[in-house]
Structures are given as structure tokens and as C-alpha cells.
């Protein structure tokens, strides 16, 4: 066996071993998000609490935080306080809206959940989970940030806690809303 063949075999084996090693430590449940930087799905459905219709049309031109949750989801309870804090932090911004999507749940249980843990922003029903599939959701909680143009700019799988909260507010939402401010200022000066 020549030296070149030996080196080639070694390189191939090392490459295979590194792939194997990567596979050992990777999360097998992790699915690479494919919807980031694509247009968000349109949606409509009844409000969990009031039953009134909600639709993506009424949020057009806003920065939207969409959070999928369910009353049977333990991790949703963990993040709920932070979601309320997030809404309080940005609610005064005219271009910020937040929407909860109640995923595959029983409405009385969802209402009881909101009464118990608090509700400051609207929540839409997705009893059959069809909207969740449209958003490529595979578990709750999952959070999406949609920009003013209706493009999904961020997706987070899991609860919004600790560093995730800081990253979402400082590195995702604040820049998106600042961009929105700059645009509105420019359009104001132009007129």
C-alpha cells in the first residue's frame, strides 16, 4: 500500500469519525428551521378568550411576536411570566404586537390557564394544529418573530428564559423595531 493510499484512508476515516462524533452530541430532535427569512403564513381564527376573529391581516405592517403554547405544556408555564414581561417591555411601541397561538388544546382549559397565569395580549385558537403545521411547528413552546414586511426573522424552539429572553429582546426585537422607527422617521421627513 502506497503512502498516498494510506493517507487517503486515514483522511476518510477521520472524516467519518468526526461526523459520528458530531452525531453523538447533536440533538436528534433538532430540525433546522427552514421558514426563517421566508414569508410568514397567513392565519385567521377565533380569539381564545372572546371568540372574536383574529387574522394576520390586522397585524400587517407590524413586528409580530408569535408564540405557540398549550395548557398541557409544562415548558409553556415556565416561560409564561417572561412572555408577559416581554409584552410589557415593548407594548408602547406602535409597531409591536404579540400573539399567542393556543395549539391543540381544549378551549375551557386554555381559558383557565390564561386566567391563572395572566393574559395581556391576544391568543388565537389552533385546535386542529393546522396553523402549527403551516409554521413548521413540531412542539410547544415555539416562538417566531415576523418583521414589518411579513418575513419570519427569528424562530426559537423551547421556552423563552434567561439568555434566550435577553437575545430575543436585545438582538432580535430591538433592532427590528429600531429599523421600523428609522423608516417611519425617513418617511415623515420626506413628507
Amino acid at each position, binding site marked *: 500500500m502506497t503512502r498516498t493510499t494510506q493517507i487517503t484512508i486515514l483522511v476518510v476515516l477521520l472524516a467519518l469519525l468526526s461526523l459520528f462524533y458530531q452525531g453523538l452530541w447533536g440533538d436528534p430532535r433538532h*430540525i*433546522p428551521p*427552514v*421558514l426563517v427569512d421566508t414569508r410568514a403564513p397567513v392565519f385567521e381564527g377565533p380569539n381564545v378568550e372572546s371568540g372574536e376573529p383574529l387574522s394576520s391581516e390586522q397585524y400587517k405592517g407590524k413586528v409580530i411576536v408569535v408564540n405557540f403554547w398549550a395548557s398541557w405544556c409544562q415548558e409553556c408555564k415556565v416561560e409564561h411570566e417572561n412572555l408577559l414581561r416581554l409584552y410589557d417591555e415593548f407594548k408602547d411601541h406602535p409597531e409591536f404586537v404579540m400573539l399567542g397561538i393556543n395549539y*391543540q388544546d381544549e378551549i375551557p382549559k386554555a381559558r383557565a390557564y390564561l386566567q391563572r397565569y395572566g393574559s395581556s395580549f391576544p391568543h388565537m385558537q389552533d385546535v386542529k394544529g393546522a396553523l*402549527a*403545521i403551516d409554521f413548521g411547528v413540531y412542539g410547544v413552546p415555539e416562538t417566531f418573530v415576523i418583521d414589518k414586511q411579513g418575513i419570519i426573522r427569528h424562530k426559537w424552539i423551547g421556552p423563552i428564559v434567561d439568555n434566550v429572553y435577553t437575545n430575543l429582546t436585545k438582538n432580535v426585537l430591538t433592532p427590528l423595531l429600531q429599523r421600523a422607527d428609522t423608516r417611519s422617521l425617513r418617511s415623515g421627513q420626506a413628507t
Partner: protein
Amino acid sequence: MFRFSPILILLCLVSSTDGLAKVVDETEIDQKVREIAKTLRCTVCQTENIWESGAPLAHQMRDAIRERVVQGQSTEEIRAYFHSRYGDYIMMEPPKQGINWLIWLAPFLLLFGGGVLLWREVKGWVTRTPEPQPPPTLDETSRRRIERELHQDRWE
């Protein structure tokens, strides 16, 4: 009473034919749903397709497929929809494009490479094996000595 019985029989036949037609339609839809669902991977459970999975999300996905089949969408359209939502991960067979070719071709390439290496090694062993040599010829002195010794053994 007997005058109405043919009408009743006809009604029964019509209603049962209608019922049969519905069953046939459902079976066709079921078949298509099953065919598509078997090609899509359950995203919350590993190595299971959404037809075989008992996970709630897989159930919803089967419903979503059924709705689209009923709407008249083709198999490819439905598969493309799920691919657009979940990417290559959801396909039981990764699409034959880009880096995915590595998954399809790597086993054959490794098998071919291994075969070539094995062939070369075996060939090396064969060429290194010495040819069988004929037994050394006996010189005259040794032959006489052996004969003499054998002769002596016989008479002792």
C-alpha cells in the same frame, strides 16, 4: 302494500349503491393518504413515518394530508407543502439534490473503495507468495548412503 314493495326495493338499492360509492371514495382517499404519509417522517419521533406514528402531531399531519387530498392536490404538491414547512428532515427519503447526494452515494463509494483496497491487498498477497519449488535433487553420494543404510536396517 305489495304495490309499494318494488319502489321500496329500488329505494333500498339506490341508497345502498350510494353507500357503496362513498365507501369506495373513502378507500381511495385513505390509500392516497397512506401512500403520502408513509413517505413523510414524523418530526417528533425518530425513524418513524407519520402513517405509523401514534404521536398527536403525526395525527394532525395525516389530517392535513387528507384535507389536501380531498381538495384535489397531487401527491407531489402535498409532499412539497410539507417539505416547504419542515425541510429535507421530513422526507423519509432525502431529495436527491445538493449535499444529499452524499447520503445516497457514500455507501456505494465506500463499498467500491473498500472493494478496490481489498482487491489490491489480496493481489499483493498473491504476488508475494513464492512459487512452489521442486524438491531438491539427490546427489549420488547421498543416494548411495541412504541405500546402504536401508540395506543395513533390513538385515539387522
